């Protein structure tokens, strides 16, 4: 009987000590203002449509609206979009379209450099949108870049997943980026690329290039094309150099360093005039 009481007392002490430890841990976490553990529910290795479905389920802003995307790749690459369960005739990249946020699109890629006859069927999962100024939405498409390395890896049987994210301008890397280029961060197969992208910015799209091919191209491709969600064709937007050459954009010539460029304070009657003129 006495031994039994000792066990009871010892057990109560253990429970109290364990609860105090848990309370201390929770108290530290609340004091620090950070969650003790963070678990990312979504993963880039999940099937296409899972992340977009979660965005639809949580009623994320932008779901159901069109977002401009630009599919680009090596020179000569051809992209065929799907509509009504069938692939359309291919177009030469870059191809700019408006795709629905919260949908999965599959397209066919042909005319791959140095791989004649080979074709791939990547998917693009649009999970978020941009908030461009009104009327300028088509000028800022989400760049979906198909590099030669990615295409080569996919043809070799690998699955290449690219989570495209929007960089936070205030913490962005101070590296120059030319038009058409995209800075890429590689992660291992065991990592969550979606989590990494979420820490670097805001994920907006997921592209997967795998070796999956349809069983019968002339058959029912509804499941293979994820229901062929609608998309909107968009005109390609010229870059600044093309607009300057066509006279639609004022060319800014970098000013030269001079001792006293202004005769007086610039006013309406004496505006700033570049010294090169």
């Amino acid at each position, binding site marked *: 009987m006495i031994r039994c009481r000792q066990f009871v007392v010892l057990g109560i002490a253990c429970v109290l000590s364990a609860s105090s430890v848990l309370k201390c841990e929770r108290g530290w976490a609340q004091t620090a203002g950070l969650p003790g553990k963070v678990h990312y529910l*979504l993963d880039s290795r999940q099937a296409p449509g*899972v992340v977009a479905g979660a965005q639809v389920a949580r009623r994320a802003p932008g779901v159901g609206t069109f977002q401009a995307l630009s599919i680009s790749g090596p020179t000569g690459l051809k992209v065929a979009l799907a509509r009504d369960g069938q692939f359309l005739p291919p177009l030469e990249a870059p191809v700019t379209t408006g795709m629905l946020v919260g949908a999965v699109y599959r397209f066919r890629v042909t005319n791959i450099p140095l791989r004649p006859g080979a074709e791939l069927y990547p998917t693009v999962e649009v999970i978020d949108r941009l908030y461009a100024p009104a009327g300028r939405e088509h000028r800022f498409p989400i760049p979906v870049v198909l590099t030669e390395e990615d295409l080569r*890896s996919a043809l070799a049987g690998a699955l290449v997943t690219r*989570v495209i994210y929007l960089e936070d301008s205030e913490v962005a890397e101070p590296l*120059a980026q030319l038009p058409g280029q995209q800075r890429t961060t590689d992660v291992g197969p065991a990592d969550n*690329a979606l989590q990494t992208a979420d820490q670097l910015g805001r994920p907006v799209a997921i592209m997967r290039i795998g070796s999956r091919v349809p069983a019968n191209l002339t058959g029912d491709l509804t499941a293979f094309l994820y229901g062929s969600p609608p998309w909107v064709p968009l005109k390609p937007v010229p870059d*600044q150099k093309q607009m300057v050459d066509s006279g639609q954009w004022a060319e800014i010539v970098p*000013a030269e360093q001079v001792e006293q460029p202004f005769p007086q304070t610039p006013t309406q009657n004496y505006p700033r005039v570049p010294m090169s003129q």
Partner: protein
Amino acid sequence: MPQSTPAASPSLFAFLSSRACRPGQPLRRLLSWCSVSASLALSGCGTLNTQTLPFRSSLNSTAATEKRADPPLRQPAVAQANDQTAVVPVGYEEPVSYEEPAGAFVDCGDGALDCQPCATPCDPVPAPAMRNAQEYIFDGGDQQPTVVIRKDWSQVGVDPTDTVVYYETLGGQVCVQPTNRVPIYAPRFGAVRQVTGAFLAARAVGAERILVPVSPGRFDDTDLAGTVKQPLAPHGEQQINLIDAFQENAVGTPIAQIVPPLRMSEALVPLEGSDSIGLGGITDDEIAVLGRVLQNARTWFVPESLGVMISGQQATMVVDSKRAQDIFVYEMPDKCAMRICKTASHTIANPGDVVSFTIRFDNAGVKPLGNAVIVDSLSPRLDYIEGSQQSSVDVRFSAEPNEVGSQVLTWEIVDPIGKNEGGAISFDCRVR
């Protein structure tokens, strides 16, 4: 599909019932088992029997499967607080609502190749007008911590994207004035690449998972972004103070409003018996009396009054000398009166574009300001083009790297800025 919880209670009931009704058990044990069985029966489990259990179990599991197939929108947390794991959805930052009219990037359904606003109702509805600060490049203003000037005329707290001017007044006061914040819409994208093998690829593209997506357990939509900054357009009018001359030239209080001293009223006591005081009028015969009592009153009752006798005769006293009617006090306050404004040549830009910035500063006060220094710490997305800066006044310019890989531009204005004087500074940057 694991065995669901509702099927476990009938199994327990059947086990207890079989054990309780076995003959040969002691009466006390039998009563205890039967009491347990009765309590279970009253709780609802006793309505089942062992033969109906498989059907009920499959029914419950089927219902559970159908219920799980329908993705719930809002359900309790997955972990049910059995540990401290927090479920964080990807891209949880909510955009900032903005009052600009809704932009229309919609499909009109007529095969239009442009995304112009639709005049007629179309599907889907126009996108809500919202902005996201991550898509903008900001330059200007003074973010926390604010800029502080040391005694050695060096500054601390100049964070990236800050643009301030600090100067000294004639009274020695050090003033710091930030500019307005200039937003430029210039989103930049990156990619995280992951290459997996063929086995994982075959599993990752399994189509059956698309039909039954794993639904989120909880998404906390109330976690709004706390540090999202509204990309306000530049409002130069809000930064402009009124001309200080109108504010500072306050008219002094007229001396007529000053309450006279008490002794002046006491001097009127001898006059109370005269008609001029009692009746409000004056006659010729009282003029001499009035003159006498007035003189006496000033002699007797005003302590500062001085009676002067020269050779036995009273000297003439001037008691009605004129005085100043109004007193104007001009105060020249030592006030921070610099007005500074910043503008950009473009509101949207792509990587590689050149954007020109202009900073306009003026002395809106009534005193000259000296030792003015304009500091602009650029965003990491902006690269200063060497030799592109221009200034309308004589300055000493320097460009030093800042902590985010860009530059800190500094203009030290050599000459003091006089009243109603100012200048302009411009420079070019390339968007990264």
